[in-house]
């Protein structure tokens, strides 16, 4: 009997819920051949094992939330459900994440068979300006916080004369609740490298860096291994010269996700924000023209070159083109990664993909875009997911991390948590953020402990105004938003804490 071919994800989160233990047991079976892939991102089903089905046109069968006792059935092919019967997966439009769950992350031949490096090949045949033009047609905006048009950055770097230029992947945008960058680096590292090479070709860069969060050791390891493989295959070369890519680890500072702080850190110094302009595209690493973009932005580029800018522009909304990788987490029934065109409402995403609330939980608030994102109550869920409607609502999409909080969440404690985060992470360059976040945390401590009066709450909102208008970068500038929106939408919880105090002293 030929052994059954089984697929099991080797992604960090799959391993965190037991994939390695299953792999060890499966390796002892002679009638099963195990292949470790990337994860499909349906993390609520992990660990998940897939099996090739030879008969019929069913595609793969899957077994979800597998435990050791399920293994005999899986090896024998008993039970399981067809992969395409899982709506969470079949309802997505996957382009950037099209290889996930299918390929082995470090198999270069698989990447190429599935269309990998076609984008780069096209780019090598094109004039530099045509590459940039293609991105302009695509309407690609940076997938980080600022959503700046990518082509315009590239053009600035291309047009700046310099003996050296750099391509830097910002893999340190550590918004809590986001994990798509980690998944790309671990699960499809060649796509990121291809995006970097296309950018290097377009602007005439001489060297590349991947600045990776220290919290993602598996991602850094996969990137290093992938760079080595591409180099061995003779593909790490541009214009007849070697194009070196270095993978550099950060050291736990959130602000290093800000592009200028990242460059300071890359140069070996404290990761403190630089005043802009000049922008990195003109004067970046070692004051040379540098493109700093996040992982997902680079990973989106190969498809744009392969399929054409017009294809990308045909997806999404008027001013948010293409697809977005949403990462659903918190108290939902189905946490996981979803790639869909921009434009679906937050409510639909949570219902359709999030699967509603986790068992026994009731919705209270949702936050999009990490620790600097605004908190939305139920009444605001109809907002469409695109850059402009979010900014109109005073919110940010950031990295597309969505965290859902349930009824049991104490909003005062949550607000205090955000201020403590800002105080921990402030780079200290500007006073509104450095001092403001400390004062803000003190005030929220008072409220939380039932020791504050109305006057302190007013002071807190004044302080928030100062931080918002006078901070140098987004950390201080956006830190007030989760706090202010918590006060705005859940005033009762703050008032109750005050009254307790006023009753005590009055």
């Amino acid at each position: 009997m030929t052994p059954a071919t089984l697929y099991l994800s080797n992604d960090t989160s799959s391993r965190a819920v037991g994939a390695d233990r299953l792999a060890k047991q499966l390796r002892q079976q002679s009638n099963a051949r195990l292949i470790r892939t990337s994860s499909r991102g349906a993390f609520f089903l992990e660990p998940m094992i897939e099996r090739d089905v030879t008969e019929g046109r069913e595609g793969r069968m899957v077994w979800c939330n597998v435990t050791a006792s399920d293994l005999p059935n899986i090896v024998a092919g008993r039970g399981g459900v067809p992969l395409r019967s899982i709506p969470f997966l079949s309802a997505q439009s996957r382009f950037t994440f099209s290889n996930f769950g299918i390929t082995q992350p470090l198999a270069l031949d698989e990447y190429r068979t599935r269309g990998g490096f076609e984008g780069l090949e096209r780019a090598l045949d094109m004039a530099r300006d045509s590459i940039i033009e293609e991105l302009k047609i695509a309407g690609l905006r940076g997938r980080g916080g600022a959503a700046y048009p990518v082509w315009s950055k590239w053009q600035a770097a291309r047009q700046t004369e310099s003996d050296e230029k750099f391509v830097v992947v910002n893999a340190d945008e550590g918004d809590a609740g986001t994990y798509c960058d980690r998944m790309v680096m671990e699960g499809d590292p060649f796509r990121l490298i291809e995006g970097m090479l296309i950018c290097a070709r377009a602007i005439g860069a001489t060297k590349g860096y991947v600045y990776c969060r220290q919290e993602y050791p598996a991602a850094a390891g996969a990137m290093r291994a992938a760079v080595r493989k591409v180099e061995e295959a003779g593909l790490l070369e541009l214009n007849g010269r070697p194009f070196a890519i270095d993978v550099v680890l950060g050291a736990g500072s959130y602000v290093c996700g800000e592009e200028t702080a990242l460059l300071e850190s890359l140069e070996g110094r404290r990761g403190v924000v630089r005043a802009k302009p000049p922008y990195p595209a003109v004067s970046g690493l070692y004051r040379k023209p540098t493109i700093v973009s996040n992982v997902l932005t680079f990973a989106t580029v190969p498809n744009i070159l392969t399929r054409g800018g017009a294809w990308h522009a045909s997806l999404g909304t008027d001013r948010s083109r293409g697809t977005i990788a949403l990462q659903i987490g918190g108290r939902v029934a189905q946490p996981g990664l979803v790639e869909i065109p921009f434009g679906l409402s937050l409510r639909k995403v949570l219902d359709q993909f999030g699967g509603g609330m986790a068992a026994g939980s009731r919705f209270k608030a949702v936050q999009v875009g990490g620790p600097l994102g605004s908190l939305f109550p139920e009444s605001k869920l109809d907002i469409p997911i695109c850059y402009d409607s979010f900014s109109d609502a005073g919110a940010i999409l950031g990295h597309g991390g969505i965290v859902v909080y349930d009824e049991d969440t104490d909003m005062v404690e949550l607000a205090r948590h955000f201020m403590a985060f800002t105080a921990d992470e402030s780079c200290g360059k500007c006073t509104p953020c450095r001092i403001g976040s400390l004062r803000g945390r003190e005030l929220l401590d008072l409220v939380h402990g039932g020791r504050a009066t109305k006057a302190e709450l007013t002071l807190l909102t004044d302080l928030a105004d100062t931080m918002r208008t006078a901070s140098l970068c987004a950390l201080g500038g956006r830190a007030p938003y989760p706090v202010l929106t918590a006060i705005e939408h859940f005033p009762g919880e703050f008032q109750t804490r005050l009254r307790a105090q006023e009753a005590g002293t009055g």
Partner: protein
Amino acid sequence: MPDQPSLDRNLDQLLSEECGRSGPSDKPKLLKVLLAVQERMGYVPPHSIPQIARRVGATEADVAGVLSYYPDLRTFAPGRHVIRICMGESCFANRCSRVLRALNDHLGIVIGETDAGRRFTLEKVYCMGNCAVAPTVAVNQDLFGRVEPEQIPSIVDCYR
């Protein structure tokens, strides 16, 4: 500290390796060197600042500045195992505070402390990218997801 001299010799060897590895044009990066020291020793001993400064060609103030800036760099020896608990939003929503309490109770230490037997150091992080299976706890490089407070003794005790 009785083992200080040998420690310094180790450090010197490590520093020359680290600095020798980067080519002449590529000046050794302070942060990278500090991370390498920590990787080898578990922390960056404050008394090694002058030595590092000399090797890297930076001022002592530069070294102290970088050392104090990055949350991951330690200036004290941690326990044999470093336990990190995630306090990011997805973990917060999934009640990481209860997991933290279980860790506090079981280990008898709070965040930033090392237990009396120097077995465990407890630290906090904001997100390890494991949000979809939150709450998250890491022991050294091993990550645990969907952690329930009740599991803490069995997770931790494997490392005793």
